[in-house]
């Protein structure tokens, strides 16, 4: 009896699909669930906190996705074995707690030699650890080659304590304002005329903004954005910047009077402008925050 071609083809399709289904079941199976919330209490000892920190590091923190403990050779990210014993001496003048905190809140601030930047901020999505969970992970890291000393009451530069950051503005707030500034930088298309990742002007019309925080004060940068004609004496440059900003509906101001009317600048009083247009002020502040953050934070 001749079997129709269609049936033979069906048999081949079923056999092939079946083989791949078997292959899919043959390899080790892993089901991954969303991270469980671990309850931390203020009366936990450092050792207990470290124990919970270990769970958080392996689960919600995703630390062990990238970092190894006790491996050597070809590694993509630093191995964490013994980190508790050496963290205090990695950056002179910085305690181990401050070092760990900086590594998690501002991971690209210090990159271990031989490795690339790329670690995400632990307090932001998709990891989004709370300050308490970060303290627990710090306790765990201290326990690797050292003794955990951290409790939930421990303060560092990023949770309102002392350290290298000014107390008036916690780094998590500064970073988020810088994020806002980054978004505005893109929104107003500043990259069209300014380089940010190199000190060279290159083919761009405007000066490079690389390290502008080292060259100019915050106030000078503030004025340069709000009053482009104070940033440059070249009318062509001023015209380009103003036109570019106006196209993006940014409220450009002129510091120099356009008419002979004394005290008036294009019909506006600059001081009143600053008082009235708070939204513009906020935006410029965010831009300044973004432009003055350390170069390795600038994407």
């Amino acid at each position, binding site marked *: 009896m001749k079997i129709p071609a269609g049936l033979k083809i069906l048999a081949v399709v079923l056999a092939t699909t079946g083989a791949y*289904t078997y292959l899919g079941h043959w390899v080790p199976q892993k089901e991954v669930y969303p991270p469980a919330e671990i309850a931390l209490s203020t009366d936990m000892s450092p050792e207990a906190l470290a124990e919970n920190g270990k769970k958080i590091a392996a689960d919600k923190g995703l630390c062990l996705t990238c970092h190894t403990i006790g491996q050597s050779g070809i590694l993509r990210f630093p191995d964490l074995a013994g980190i508790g014993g050496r963290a205090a001496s990695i950056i002179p003048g910085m305690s181990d707690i401050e070092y760990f905190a900086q590594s998690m809140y501002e991971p690209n601030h210090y990159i271990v030699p031989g490795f690339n930047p790329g670690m995400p901020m632990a307090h932001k999505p998709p990891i989004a650890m709370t300050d308490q969970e970060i303290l627990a992970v710090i306790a765990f890291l201290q326990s690797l080659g050292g003794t955990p000393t951290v409790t939930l009451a421990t303060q560092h530069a990023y949770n309102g304590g002392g350290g290298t950051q000014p107390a008036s503005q916690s780094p998590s707030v500064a970073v988020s304002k810088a*994020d806002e500034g980054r978004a505005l930088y893109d929104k107003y298309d500043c990259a069209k005329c300014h380089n940010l990742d190199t000190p060279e002007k290159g083919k761009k019309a405007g000066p490079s903004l690389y390290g502008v925080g080292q060259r100019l004060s915050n106030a000078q940068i503030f004025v340069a954005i709000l009053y482009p004609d104070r940033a440059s004496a070249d009318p062509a440059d001023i015209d380009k910047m103003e036109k570019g900003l106006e196209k993006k509906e940014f409220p450009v101001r002129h510091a120099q009077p356009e008419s002979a009317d004394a005290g008036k600048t294009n019909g506006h009083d600059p001081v009143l402008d600053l008082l009235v247009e708070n939204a513009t002020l906020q935006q410029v502040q965010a831009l300044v925050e973004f432009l003055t953050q350390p170069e390795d934070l600038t994407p």
Partner: protein
Amino acid sequence: MNRSKIFILIGVSALLAVVLAVRISGHLSSISYRSPHHVTQPQPAPREQGLTDAAEADAARQKAKPYEEVEYRKFPITGSRVAIWVVAQLHLLFAAFVLAVPIFAFLIQLIGYKTGDKRYDRLAHEFTRLLSVSFSFTASFGAFLTFMLIILYPKLTQYLMHVFNPTFLPYTLLFFAEAVFLYAYYYGWGKFSPRVHLAIGLALNLTGTAIMFIANSWLTFMSSPRGVADSGAVISTWEAINNFTWMPINIHRMIANVSYGGSIAAAYAAYKFLSAKTDEARAHYDWMGYIGNFVAIAALLPLPFAGYWLTKEIYAFSQTMGLIMMGGAFSQLFIIQAILIGVLFLGAAYYLWLGMARIEGAERYQKYIKYLVSIIVLCIAVWATPRSPISTSSEMRAMGGSFHPLLGYLGLMSAKNTAVDVLILTIFVSFLLYRRSGKYAVVPWEKTGNRLQASILALAVGVVVFYGVYGYFVEAAVRIGFSVPQVLAVLTAMISVSIIDIFMFRGARNSETHWGRMPVRSQYILIIIAVTFTWTMGLMGYARAGLRMHWHVYGVVRDTSPDAFTPTLGFAANVVSVTALIFFTFIGFVFWLSGLTDRKDYEPKEPKAS
């Protein structure tokens, strides 16, 4: 009357009185209470009144019910996630086919126009025959997917529509344009001047590509969001579209679509070959299958490089996501992917070697096949070696961990990049040998040309292996950059060797190719290739969506549904297999429908003479 009769009379009377009393009391309790006051309407009993009051209160509560947005709805039997998964995958498979066929049909038609060979024009027309009903299925599954997203994931869908609302009108208008160009291209075949018809084909391709680019922005945004604040508020729609993985996915899908479409077209040719009744039909479909397979493999060769770019951008967006993909929860998936791609390459090469038997003069190259097979199998083995092999506890203790002391080094990207690049070059050489099987070069510099080609290939392999080995001795940051010279070496070798080959065989003496003289198993290889492609696409869809873990939009919109977990590879394999079988059922219908054109017209049977 005596005393006994009196007692009997009293007893009966008492009994009757009791019965009467019971009957009267029962009757009295069954009648409705009537108020002593005069009423015009009957009053309900307390129980009935109570029921009425409860019903009225319920109705009042329903009317006063506040509107609450539902975040998720449940799909019966399979659950919402699997339902969306299957429908989305089916839409993608048909969309890939519908976008791919016009690309290579246009190119084949162009070859026919340039060379004047009518066979190519007829072949392109035959490929296009598969398009019309496939287009309908694509649109139907797309509409089905849209409705299911709205019903089952209303909040997520609303958010995505909020972000991408400027793209929906262009998308819809492009669909109308696609329909116009597609049907004009197919039904207008031979009815316009060749240039006009080619222009319609080009417009069809551009429209289809634009549609794909728009749709890709939605799904890539979910994996690598950009242009939105941490809260999800939109900052820039263009940035949301032009996110990290948008262009890499566009390029990867464009190339993969061509490869996939070629394989389905080749499977159609295989089906027709196996059903053919005449030698002429077999010859025609053998040739068609060869062309389809050639298109599939030609596009498959650069596909890993597009995949590398995509992976690079995933790492650039989030190193965590990249490492979950390659070294974490999805690492075993890429071992399966290696096996699947290995099957594709080996199958395609085997088809080519079987095809050499139909070409006179191919015997001189058959001695090289065993070396090519060995290299291909070795490369696939290296590619498929996991970093941590499946081991028992005692085996792990013996190894001192999960990392095999010898084979573990093959589980690293340095080895895998090297294996893939050498594999691609080997398949390329395979095809080169097939191409020159029936040709005898007449140029005086043939020997020099062959030596030059061999040197270029050897140099490319040398560069690839050098960087592969060197990568073990440098830091990760340096090693990652080595894939660039490796890829460049392979691409340069393929292009330069092809150019030399074209010039070397210009005016060559050709021997005869006996189309149709192919063993039947070659056609089943084409079917296996098509199934493998389909399964690979399903698996990679699982990888892309699963990398988001418990996020709908990574880092922006959290998945809080009951399905907010990554299922096992085994479960994914079940879903992918079921989807593939559904797809082949539909595509079987497409093949059958397209084959009706060749069937004789229906003729009513003559009535039997009485």
